[in-house]
């Protein structure tokens, strides 16, 4: 297989697995785990086989053009750095799947879990493999979304919901900033393509927009990596199932921020702004995270703060502006992934087998689960930086870099080694506390469950990861050396420095710092032991800021209070001001260009007006004015008059030989009139008022103003129309349509050929909108609360007995029912002939809708629905599917979307028949129009059937 195919497969596999996982029954724990495991393993193998390519320092690219004019495309790009992350994501993902199989309870709906998990893995791979900044941001937001779903997996638990929401708000807000930053970076570099951006480092750093771009990108990275001051979401995300925590907070989610900073390191790093923002955020997270971790009583809480601290370490390394430090950062990223994933899993095992994660309740577990205890101890030792383990190596490199730093501030440079030694001592202290209090000491009392070793395969992922810690710790150069080398070379480019991966560098200052940190950590722990045993609830010496309360308050202000205040200040619930503003804005918008370019009328005004048409127009205008006049006082009359104006329009279309338009106008007029008639019943009654001179005078300014607006808008539009219509018709595409309708479109009805063939894509969009409108009307009417006075049946209905009501519509009802098949046949006829003669799917659909409306009118809602099974929503869906499938069908014969095709069918009796694909398309339009109209009808009709809840008193 080619590299292209494999790259796509690597990205597509998890998403395909996620879609597949959804279709399993809720209790298929084993099948799900097999599927997810196989997908993760396959993705790992696919990633692994790229090793020879990336080891030659090659950059694999696979491009799909989408909008090349905008620099948008779908580009997959794999170099050594991306490869390393892909392997981490898929490899640890596989181990976590295996672990989750045993962790998840049989009662949990596992399809959802594994589906989200795989989708999250896919999104991670999408970020890692993105060869385009926009694409990277897209997958970045996807990871936010899926991590939200994963953290909130136990959505019956309020903590999980809140934690998930907090993670989503923080990380996706950061993602939006990143989006803005990526746009800026792409604009400076002249391309969103990652290769070109990476090559434009000097240009970007020298640009005046560098600082805003940097801040925006870093906002994205630091929120994702839970760096100070955005760290608060991570401890709350611990409400997630432990496999999720093990994955998200070791190898995946939080590493994305680090990934991004390292990815853009050659472009953005090297300035003082970078060192100040990244370095300080990293240092604060490193020190404060380590300090806060000591005082956590929840095992996962301790690990969460330790994660913040270790990511702070990595961020600090990246922020030191030294290539060697960046290498150390990449190295520590790998090491942290291994030991933190295993520690989370061990914490999950303890939780699973004892029923609690509270360090104060746990004790002496080593005698019940010796193997797990040993594994956890090794991993914790790696976390603390004990020699012979991988954590020691990267921490040693880190200390060396902290000593060598040459930042913009002398005092900072000098203070840094002390600060990091203290923080390292803290991390030794919390690691020690974890080991000492959970596994040693007296046997635990009063645990929810009797502790014992976990199942064999639940332990396996921990064993594998701990083995990696030890092997890397012992033989760094032989095992991880080449991987680190290729990742560092890919990430840093030509700036990659020489470095040595060895266990022993001789007696030097970093070693002394390590020893000091180890000793200091033991000291800190001994000092705090008694205080910790007493169970202090909060971290001493830190201001008691409840990040969650602050977050909630900010969120409430931004999402509720401010918008409401804004709405109260500038919004209105009244229809009249809204419409007034709409009309005024339209007039103003039209006046703008007129003011600049002036208004001139053409010469083509035709002096002779046919008196018949003129009379029709006078009638139409009278109807329109009458409708406006009566709209306030007598709605029914206004509606009838509006219908009259519509009919005159229809006659005008006939007069000017536009039968298609006339037909459509007529049917639209009928359908809308009937639907509005049905809706009239639910409008509130007018408040009765007595006409007085004083009242009229008080209302006069408002009425005059409204009249002025109405005259300006209507007269202005008429003037514009006149100015356009008195000019000769410019040479437009319409001539082409007329001449090509038959030769190219195969139909003699130009209007229909344009609709279904030349402009088929527009029509597809239009029917989509129509379907959406139908659904929206339905949704709005479903929750409709009528005015109090129109709740009861109208007086006419109340006075009328049921018998006379049935009597009244007896003969008309029979005739209406008789008309149903006739109108149906007419609709079919219009549909079939549409391509060559006036008609088509839209008109036919409206005709069919009229037939349906008649049935509702003749027999009432219950009668009609007992006999006619109309499924409007299905009709809408089917219509859209048919139309889209017809368009997609053109792909089969390698033609573009919606290209018109024709198939000759041999039918019995009828003979040879040419069946153009546009006809099928028109059938889709037909179904959708019927569905959308019927949906509105049904929604209105059901108002009178259902019982209404009285509106609440304001």
């Amino acid at each position: 297989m080619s590299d292209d195919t494999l790259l796509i497969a690597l990205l597509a596999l998890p998403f395909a697995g996620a879609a597949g996982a959804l279709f399993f029954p809720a209790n298929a724990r084993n099948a799900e785990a097999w599927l997810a495991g196989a997908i993760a393993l396959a993705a790992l193998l696919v990633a692994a086989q790229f090793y020879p390519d990336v080891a030659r320092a090659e950059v694999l690219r696979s491009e799909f053009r989408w909008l090349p004019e905008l620099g948008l495309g779908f580009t997959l790009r794999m170099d050594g750095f991306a490869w390393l992350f892909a392997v981490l994501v898929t490899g640890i993902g596989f181990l976590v799947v295996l672990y989750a199989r045993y962790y998840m309870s049989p009662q949990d709906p596992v399809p959802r879990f594994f589906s989200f998990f795989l989708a999250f893995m896919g999104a991670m791979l999408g970020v890692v493999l993105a060869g385009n900044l926009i694409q990277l941001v897209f997958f970045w937001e996807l990871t936010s979304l899926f991590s939200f779903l994963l953290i909130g997996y136990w959505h019956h638990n309020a903590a999980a919901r809140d934690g998930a929401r907090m993670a989503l708000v923080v990380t996706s807000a950061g993602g939006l900033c990143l989006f803005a930053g990526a746009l800026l970076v792409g604009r400076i570099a002249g391309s969103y393509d990652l290769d070109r951006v990476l090559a434009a480092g000097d240009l970007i750093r020298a640009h005046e927009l560098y600082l805003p771009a940097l801040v925006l990108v870093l906002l994205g990275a630091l929120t994702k990596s839970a760096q100070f001051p955005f760290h608060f979401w991570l401890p709350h995300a611990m409400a997630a199932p432990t496999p999720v925590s093990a994955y998200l907070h070791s190898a995946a989610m939080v590493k994305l921020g680090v990934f991004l900073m390292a990815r853009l390191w050659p472009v953005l790093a090297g300035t003082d702004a970078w060192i100040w923002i990244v370095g300080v955020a990293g240092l604060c997270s490193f020190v404060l995270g380590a300090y806060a971790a000591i005082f956590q009583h929840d095992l996962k809480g301790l690990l969460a703060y330790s994660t913040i601290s270790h990511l702070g370490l990595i961020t600090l390394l990246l922020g030191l502006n030294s290539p060697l430090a960046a290498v150390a950062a990449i190295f520590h990223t790998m090491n942290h992934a291994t030991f933190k994933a295993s520690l989370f899993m061990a914490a999950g095992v303890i939780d699973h087998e004892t029923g609690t994660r509270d360090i104060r309740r746990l004790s002496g577990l080593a005698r019940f689960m010796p193997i797990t205890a040993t594994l956890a101890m090794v991993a914790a030792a790696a976390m603390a930086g004990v020699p012979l383990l991988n954590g020691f190596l990267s921490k040693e490199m880190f200390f060396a870099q902290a000593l060598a730093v040459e930042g913009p501030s002398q005092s900072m440079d000098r203070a840094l080694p002390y600060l990091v030694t203290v923080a390292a001592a803290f991390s030794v202290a919390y690691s020690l506390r974890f080991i000492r209090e959970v596994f040693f000491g007296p046997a635990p009392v009063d645990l929810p469950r009797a502790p014992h070793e976990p199942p064999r395969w639940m332990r396996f992922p921990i064993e594998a990861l701990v083995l990696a810690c030890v092997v890397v710790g012992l033989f760094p150069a032989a095992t991880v050396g080449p991987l680190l080398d290729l990742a560092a070379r890919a990430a840093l480019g030509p700036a990659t420095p020489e470095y040595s991966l060895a266990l022993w560098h001789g007696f030097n200052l970093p070693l002394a710092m390590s020893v000091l940190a180890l000793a200091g950590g033991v000291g800190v722990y001994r000092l705090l032991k008694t205080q910790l045993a007493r169970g202090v609830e909060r971290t001493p010496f830190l201001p008691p800021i409840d990040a969650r309360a602050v977050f909630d308050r900010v969120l409430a202000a931004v999402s509720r209070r401010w918008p409401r205040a804004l709405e109260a200040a500038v919004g209105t619930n009244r229809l009249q001001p809204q419409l007034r503003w709409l009309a005024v804005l339209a007039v103003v918008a039209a006046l703008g260009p007129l003011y600049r370019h002036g208004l001139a009328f053409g010469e083509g005004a035709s002096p002779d007006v046919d008196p018949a048409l003129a009379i029709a127009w006078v009638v139409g205008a009278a109807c329109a004015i009458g409708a406006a006049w009566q709209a306030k006082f007598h709605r029914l009359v206004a509606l009838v008059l509006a219908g009259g104006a519509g009919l005159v329009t229809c006659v005008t279309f006939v007069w000017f030989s536009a039968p298609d338009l006339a037909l459509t106008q007529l049917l639209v007029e009928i359908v809308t009139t009937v639907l509005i008639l049905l809706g009239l019943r639910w409008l509130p009654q007018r408040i009765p008022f007595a006409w007085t001179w004083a009242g009229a005078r008080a209302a006069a300014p408002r009425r005059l103003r409204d009249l002025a607006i109405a005259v300006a808008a209507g007269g202005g539009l008429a003037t514009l129309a006149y100015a356009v219509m008195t000019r000769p018709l410019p040479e437009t595409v319409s001539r082409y349509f007329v001449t090509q309708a038959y030769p190219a479109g195969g139909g003699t009805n130009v209007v229909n050929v344009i609709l279904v063939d030349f402009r088929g894509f527009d029509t597809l969009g239009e029917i989509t909108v129509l379907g959406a409108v139908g659904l929206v009307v339905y949704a709005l009417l479903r929750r409709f609360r009528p005015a109090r006075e129109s709740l009861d049946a109208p007086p006419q209905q109340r006075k009328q007995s049921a018998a006379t009501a049935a009597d009244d519509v007896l003969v008309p009802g029979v005739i209406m029912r008789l008309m149903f098949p006739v109108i149906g046949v007419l609709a079919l006829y219009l549909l079939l002939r549409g391509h060559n003669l006036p008609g088509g799917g839209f008109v036919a659909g409206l005709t069919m809708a009229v037939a349906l409306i008649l049935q509702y009118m003749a027999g009432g809602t219950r009668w009609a629905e007992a006999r006619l099974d109309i499924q409007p929503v299905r009709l809408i869906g089917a219509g859209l599917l048919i139309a889209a499938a017809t368009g997609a069908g053109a792909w089969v014969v390698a033609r573009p979307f919606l290209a018109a095709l024709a198939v000759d069918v041999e039918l019995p009796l009828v003979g040879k028949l040419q069946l153009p694909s546009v006809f099928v398309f028109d059938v889709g339009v037909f179904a959708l129009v019927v569905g959308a109209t019927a949906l509105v009808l049904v929604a209105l009709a059901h108002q009178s059937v259902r019982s209404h809840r009285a509106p609440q008193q304001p």
Partner: protein
Amino acid sequence: MSHAAGLPSFVAFVIALLVVLGAVLTLIGALGLLRLRSFYDRVHAPTLGTTLGTGLVLIASLTLFSALQSRPVLHEILIGVFMTITTPVTFMLLVRAALHRDRSAGRDPAAEGASRSQGRPPEPRPE
């Protein structure tokens, strides 16, 4: 109309006569609607247009197209049939509604025509 040029003049005369007759009948119906006093009187007037008036125009159309295409063109019969079937529905519903209104207002619909013949027809009352 260019495509009507080949029409024999006597056929054209017949068609014109039919169309004018139909139009006049419809006009009379419209005038009746305007002039007659009570609702129950007025409801009769437009039927002149919808029955005989339409029928004459349809026969004219039928004649015209049959003559032009030299074959019987019978589409118009369908129009006539449907007009005949559907127009009464409108009238029935309108009259039923009027009856209903008068009865519920306590007026005698039978006396309505006589008593109202002096004044204006009752205003449609808003709900």
